């Protein structure tokens, strides 16, 4: 059964059986707050950490500062106060939109980040082919973004980040724009990748089901200025199967998170 802790800085507890995880967190937020130049108070005093092998999801409604959290984590925006500790070169960022370059086909889009980092052509070609296969886009290498569906674009975007083999994966509501069925399939893929790569994941979403299905921990965020009001551990083992979504325990945990969310936004 899910266990709720209110201690945001609580000691890291591995939920799943992962003995090879290292004791130092991959990503640390320490008293981070964000006030935009226009006076918008997006984030207030937020502290948490994500360890290798942990998949942490932040749920909250639109406009509560979730995306700000990731922008700060990646270094795109500096925080107003507090600090973030993360190895920037090992961060992979999956954007809200697929942000594929329209003039590149799938293969060359997936190679982009490696290319920008100066990886030799042969190596990045090989790696791109591998991640394309991993996300199930084999056979679509020569297609251009306008020839792809929304879900396939997100797969390509995922593959592009995978090429760099990141240790910290930041997901900014990546499947918000695709339909429910595609979203569930993409969730299965992310779970599969997580099972294989064991990165540290920080995932932003407004879907409770997605949060519970993917993560080892769920953080509930309040309305703006955002702060973390509740934390849930998700006890299910990996690899997780699609039918987990119909498990009573799953429903129970989702209900508790939903309750907290409503409390936070009443």
């Amino acid at each position: 059964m899910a266990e709720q802790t209110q201690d945001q800085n609580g000691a890291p507890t591995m939920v799943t059986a992962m003995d090879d995880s290292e004791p130092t967190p991959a990503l640390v937020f320490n008293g981070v707050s964000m006030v935009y130049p226009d006076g918008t108070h997006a984030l207030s005093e937020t502290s948490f950490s994500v360890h290798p092998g942990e998949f942490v999801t932040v749920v909250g409604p639109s406009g509560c500062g979730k995306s700000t959290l990731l922008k700060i984590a990646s270094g795109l925006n500096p925080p107003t106060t507090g600090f973030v500790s993360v190895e920037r070169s090992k961060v992979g960022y999956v954007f809200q939109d697929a942000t594929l370059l329209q003039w590149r086909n799938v293969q060359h889009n997936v190679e982009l980040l490696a290319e920008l980092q100066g990886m030799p052509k042969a190596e990045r070609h090989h790696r791109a082919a591998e991640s394309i296969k991993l996300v199930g886009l084999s056979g679509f290498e020569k297609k251009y973004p306008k020839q792809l569906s929304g879900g396939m674009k997100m797969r390509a975007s995922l593959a592009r980040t995978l090429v760099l083999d990141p240790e910290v994966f930041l997901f900014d509501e990546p499947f918000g724009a695709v339909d429910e069925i595609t979203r569930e399939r993409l969730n299965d893929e992310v779970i599969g990748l997580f099972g294989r790569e064991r990165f540290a994941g920080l995932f932003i979403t407004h879907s409770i089901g997605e949060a519970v299905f993917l993560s080892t921990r769920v953080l509930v965020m309040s309305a703006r200025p955002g702060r973390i009001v509740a934390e849930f551990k998700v006890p299910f083992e990996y690899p997780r199967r699609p039918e987990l979504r119909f498990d009573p325990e799953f429903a129970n945990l989702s209900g508790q998170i939903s309750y907290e969310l409503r409390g936070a936004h009443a």
Partner: protein
Amino acid sequence: MSTAEFPFIVPGTDAGAVEDTVLDAPPPTPQDKFEWNTIIGPLVTFVIFLAIWEWMHRTGMRMLFDKPGFLLPSPVTVVDQAFLRHKPRRKLLGGLYWTAFVSVIGLFLSIVVGMTLAVIMARAKWAERAVYPYLVALQATPVLAVVPVIAAVFGGGLGPRIFVCVMISIFPIASNTLFGLLSADKGQHDLFTLSEVSRFTRLRKLQFPSAMPAIFTGFRIAAGLAVVGAVVGEQFFRQGSKPGIGIVIEEYRQKIKFPEIYGGLIIIAGLGVTVFLIFGWLTKVVVGHWHESNR
């Protein structure tokens, strides 16, 4: 829970990919099929046009405008006198050569200077503020008013004629390139920012490719204007050697040789259409495979 009841997708397997494409199908690719009406349509218009022209020559000129028919010779006469006879053909094609020469050089210079200005303007807001108003001023000044001044100061050589072409065609190139360079998606910029790339890399791999459709639209507009500029220039540079088509037409006008005049007009129109088609084709080759509208 038995897995048999819930078929699920194992990431990375081909089964998963195939299933997904069924559920989440990509948009259909439009087929390039040969359609007869792409030829018949223009052909019908052309025949109607010729018929009206012939009718105007025989009856319409007198009936509608009370003018003699020889002011608008029959298309047959035009083709015969302007194109099938050696001397006028040579003269008209010579004019075409110089007009095309001036337009192409002018267009080329506009592209080089206009795009350079656009890159500088895209780099910094202050540079845009320093340059753009003057481009607008240049665009707003009627070329017809400036050309006589240029003619009076520099005479009618090729240089001043090319200069007029640049004047008239630089604005659409500079403004479209600038617009294109600034049009890249915010998320795509973030992507490049996270990779900590140099400004030059960002320009080369993000801004220029995404600007291509706008740049080519600018080229197409500018190419048409360059031809206009070349012909307009010639109206004021009559005394110059290396006569362009505008000068040749003017000579025929003075000699009241109407078939040759209309022949000259057809040639100018042909040059304009050719330029348009070339750039339409170039646009299709360069951005047609990824850009939504390749027209």
